[in-house]
């Protein structure tokens, strides 16, 4: 039992480190100077960094060599991620493309399409997004209603997608739509990729409860108004849309969802430094109890991740333990954010004129969204109950019905 790399892993880490040191600056503290850039500058620096990585072979570690990847093992991806995180580099905007869209293109696109699209995606020249969720299809995403109608060699798309990250700066997107409402829910879906500049597509940033729109997590509504997609951009067979979507979502799950933001360290620092009626806040027993609870959660998550990494490190399949990560971390974030605001007592609600929204306020405002994105708390509990514990699925009221006959209101 130890926390050390194997000799091979240490060698790989040193190689990562050497390249990173030559090409980027180490972070100072926990700050990341790229967090405060305008969207335009963020895109520019992100694309430059991606290109640099691409040229040196660090852009998409897990991709096959034939598409410019390294065929890195999961543990090598983790090591790269750990090292890259220590440097002041931009990130985020290519994750959906490289993690979800790329693999689905590799599996379902033609050779010609792969040659056309994969390299620019990896190089950071073209950005991709994922168009799945709809206003009436969240947790039950297979209940989506956007329509695809065949017209010669083309499909005409009408409907609305929602919560599409980065749609406003994306060049392409992957899309699931309903081609047949007269058959069962999961059977009537078909999968495409689409040029986001196609006529009839309108992207509207969503103003979130944080007050942000277009920046931050960058969610959008995407409207399709008689958008024409060539049949050649269909991925998988007609009616295989759900199967293809599941492949994509499996790829998404490989990225462990840790809710980022204020954590126990910040709560602890605040408790040690913040005055509370003449004493440090940490002297308050109610505060001490909560610090103990958060530490147990944060530390438990850290070592849960270490257990997963340990399994990967030995070339074994990890256990299901990582399935608790998001549900625990997002709730902890909300609770710590709440505490940080409380620490300001009667004035806790105020936003600092110079500093803006504090990290605790940001955590508290953002946490409800994190408890929904990528699976609500309730869906994640279902996932644990069904896939980890082996309990039965809930009986479904839509079973055996044609999609159009599924009830949507009382």
């Amino acid at each position, binding site marked *: 039992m130890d926390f050390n790399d194997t000799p091979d892993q240490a060698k790989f880490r040193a190689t990562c480190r050497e390249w990173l040191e030559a090409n980027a600056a180490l972070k100072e503290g926990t700050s990341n100077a790229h967090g405060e850039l305008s969207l335009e500058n963020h895109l520019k620096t992100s694309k430059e960094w991606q290109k640099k990585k691409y040229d040196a072979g660090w852009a998409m570690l897990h991709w096959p060599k034939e598409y410019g990847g390294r065929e890195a093992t999961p543990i090598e991806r983790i090591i790269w991620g750990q090292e890259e995180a220590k440097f002041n580099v931009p990130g985020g905007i290519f994750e959906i493309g490289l993690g979800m869209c790329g693999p689905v293109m590799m599996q379902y696109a033609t050779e010609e399409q792969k040659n056309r699209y994969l390299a620019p995606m990896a190089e950071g020249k073209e950005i991709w997004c994922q168009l799945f969720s709809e206003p009436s299809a969240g947790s039950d995403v297979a209940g989506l209603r956007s329509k695809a109608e065949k017209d010669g060699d083309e499909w005409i798309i009408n409907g609305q997608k929602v919560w599409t990250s980065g749609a406003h700066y994306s060049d392409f997107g992957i899309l699931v739509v309903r081609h047949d409402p007269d058959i069962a829910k999961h059977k009537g879906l078909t999968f495409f990729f689409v040029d986001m500049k196609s006529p009839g597509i309108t992207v509207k940033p969503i103003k979130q409860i944080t007050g942000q729109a277009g920046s931050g997590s960058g969610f959008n509504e995407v409207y399709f108004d008689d958008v024409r997609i060539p049949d050649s951009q269909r991925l998988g067979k007609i009616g295989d849309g759900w199967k293809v979507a599941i492949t994509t979502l499996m790829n998404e799950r490989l990225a462990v969802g840790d809710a980022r933001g204020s954590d126990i360290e910040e709560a602890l620092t605040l408790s040690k430094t913040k005055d509370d009626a003449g004493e440090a806040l940490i002297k308050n027993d109610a505060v001490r109890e909560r610090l103990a609870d958060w530490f147990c959660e944060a530390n438990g998550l850290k070592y849960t991740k270490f257990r997963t990494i*340990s399994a990967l490190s030995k070339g074994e399949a990890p256990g299901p333990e990582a399935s608790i990560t998001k549900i625990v971390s997002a709730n902890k974030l909300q609770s710590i954010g709440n505490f940080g605001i409380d620490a300001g007592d009667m004035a806790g609600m105020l936003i600092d004129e110079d500093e803006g929204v504090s990290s605790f306020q940001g955590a508290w405002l953002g946490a409800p969204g994190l408890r929904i994105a990528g699976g609500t708390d309730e869906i994640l509990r279902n996932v644990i109950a069904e896939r980890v514990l082996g309990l039965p699925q809930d009986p479904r009221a839509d079973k055996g019905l044609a999609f159009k006959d599924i009830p949507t209101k009382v």
Partner: protein
Amino acid sequence: MNLDFSDDQKYLQEEARKFFEKEGGLSNARKVMDQSQDADHELWNKIVELGWTAIRIPEAYEGLGLGHLELCVIAEELGRSLAPVPFSSSVYFFTEALIKYGSEEIKAELLPKLVSGEVVGTYAIAEDFHQATESNLQVASANNDLNGIKIAVPDAGLASHMVVVATSSQGAELRLVNLKDPSVTVSPQKNIDTSKAFFKVAFNNTPSQLLGQSGQGWEYIQHLLDQAAVLFAFEQVGGSQAALDMAKAYSLERFAFGRQIGSYQAIKHKLADMYIAITLAKSNCYYGAWALSAESSELSLAAATARVSSTKAFQLCSKENIQTHGGNGFTWEYDCHMFYKRSKVLSVLLGSEATWKEKLVANLEKTNTLVKE
């Protein structure tokens, strides 16, 4: 990165699990509970024969000379089966106290007998219904004689020896006592978990031997508590998992309103929360196991974290297992109450959850340990 047990340790755990299953699983604890015994002597003798009491004892004293990790995997299985034996008192506490603080003479005399089973040890800290501190100890030693009363002493019925924390003119001392001495009175005390026995132990000019240095006894006991907390935490995780397994099995078999109760989200989410609590506790236990085996300076923090986390997990799992069973869960016949009671006993045995939370935060206060990698 290798935060995992070795193949040999996993094999030992598998063997331990099979052993307890073969010996009748929970039926041993039930037998002790129904017949008001102090322990399952037969099961204990078999454990001694398997060599588990010898794990940590150096080879020079006829032991196996293994590390704490072997104890961790066995602890999880003891917890799963609620084994009614004095293993924790004798092995996690008494044996460790002798290895760490015993003189050469004491070690040469007693360690081989712990291997053979001739000696069984326990420990005594509590004296009243409040948190024991260095300054409120009443049991006192003077000229190697011990006087006073300890209560809630586990396993003193079967034990032949014990370590006692006592006050003296030099400050706290850790002292070794032979329970067979006529000056010692051991009397059983009733408790909420009758599958585990507790005793009042009275000393009347009882001869005792000093372990380590005079005045250091309180520090010693804190270190022994930290070590034991990690091992108990593994027991708590084992018990939590057993309670979840039991709840799951029942939820698949019981029908209500025409379907398995395990298909209702109310039950599914309850069980998912149990799984989440166990996973956090187990990961904190692995951290504790590492700190214990590496003799890390983080042991105190790691032990408190593992203990608080595992205490919460076992309490949640054992109480919600009863609720999942409905009325059946409230009967003596179903095993649910055995986990419920054991979880409560384990949650106070080394000091309450609040005591350990305080210990955890006191550690955070003085260190700059960060959670982030």
